[in-house]
């Protein structure tokens, strides 16, 4: 029972193999096996969204997915956002618009925002607020987070 099993997960474009227990949560694979600690654990009760990563392009709470369930699939974390030309427009938006204070919620917020803009490049304020409604922020009051996403949408609109 609970025998270890080998999984292959593509994280930020790079294939990783790991020998894991089936009960290992995806967030622990990411943080403890792959040492990508940008993805945070906030509540561990599926409520806060700071553990958000993209699983095959869709934002999910990595504390509520088993690592074995990511076998053969693609995971994107905040570490994968920065490109050869520098910060991702969403990261730049959070920096320019002061979209963070303590920064604890920020990785999850940014991953959710990236997925939103991939699906809806020109979201309304209401659509942004709905998209991030599963990501809790204790500091900012959300106003500047919305502005950060709007900044990224405008910037991506120019480059696209």
């Amino acid at each position: 029972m609970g025998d270890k099993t080998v999984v292959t997960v593509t994280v930020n474009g790079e294939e990783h193999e790991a020998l894991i227990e089936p009960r290992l949560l995806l967030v622990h694979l990411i943080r403890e096996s792959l040492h990508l600690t940008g993805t945070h654990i906030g509540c561990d009760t599926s409520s806060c969204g700071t553990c958000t990563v993209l699983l095959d392009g869709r934002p999910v709470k990595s504390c509520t997915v088993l690592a074995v369930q990511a076998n053969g699939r693609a995971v994107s974390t905040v570490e994968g956002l920065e490109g050869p030309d520098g910060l991702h427009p969403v990261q730049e938006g959070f920096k320019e618009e002061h979209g963070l204070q303590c920064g604890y919620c920020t990785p999850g917020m940014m991953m959710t925002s990236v997925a939103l803009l991939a699906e809806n490049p020109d979201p309304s304020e209401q659509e942004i607020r709905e998209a991030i409604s599963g990501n809790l922020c204790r500091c900012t009051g959300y106003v500047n987070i919305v502005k950060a996403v709007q900044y990224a949408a405008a910037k991506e609109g120019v480059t696209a």
Partner: protein
Amino acid sequence: MLPSSFAYVAPTTVDEAVQALAAGGGDAKVVAGGQSLLPMMKLRLAAPGTLVDINGIAGLDVLEEADGMLRIGALVRHGDLERSALVRDRYPIIHDAARHIADPLIRNRGTFCGSIAHGDPAGDWATVASALNAELHAVGPDGPAVHSARDFQTGMFETRLGLDQVLVEARIPQPVAGQGSAYLKVERKVGDYAAAAVGVVVVLDGDTVTEAGIGLTNVGPLTIDAAAAAASLVGRSIDDAAALEEAGRLAMEASDPPSDLRGPAEYKQDLVRVLTKRALRTAGARARGEQA
């Protein structure tokens, strides 16, 4: 928080899944979206010996109309329903509910069928399925079995689904001419279960109600099929305020909510009365094509 150890099986067919459940002898559980089961396992409220992951079974993500029914496969996620144009245009009650289940992140994993299989009276989909008079198609060692959504739940977290059965899909009758539907939920915040929610489906001939279904969420130990409230509407005008008031009162009488963090019982009962009337008005308007 890690769950207790378990054996993990990832079948690629429904038959293999059924065999794995049987081999687990009552100590095996299906995992679909995992958005109810994994939180319970992390809190050690559940500790199945074997987890049968159905996410790798091809074809269970079916979401289509066929033979007069809408088929919702066991891997159709809340978010798939929220984003579906077919659902938005033809099944407004499903679209309404999808937008208010949990939060957008949970909605990318959690499934319609998993929510119904969970047997939680707070689950929104069981109510929607009841109002729409859905069929629940399961497969077990003895072959297929069909359950009605209207009496599927038998207790708190208990349903008619056998421990060795996989719920494969829900089938919902396609809307007939003059049909309208709506789901109204009052929640304290995004990601919270309903303080109370009401799902209604009506079929109109002119202004006259010829058929109705009303379901209630989180206002009693079971998902509630408010059959008396629905029956009271048949033969009456959807514009008759007294008829709607009576349906609201009967729905309220069918509810039996506890007083808890989401409010006192009296408040929730009155929510049921008011939401029933409002949902009926919206469904009526939609049936006549007056409102999206």
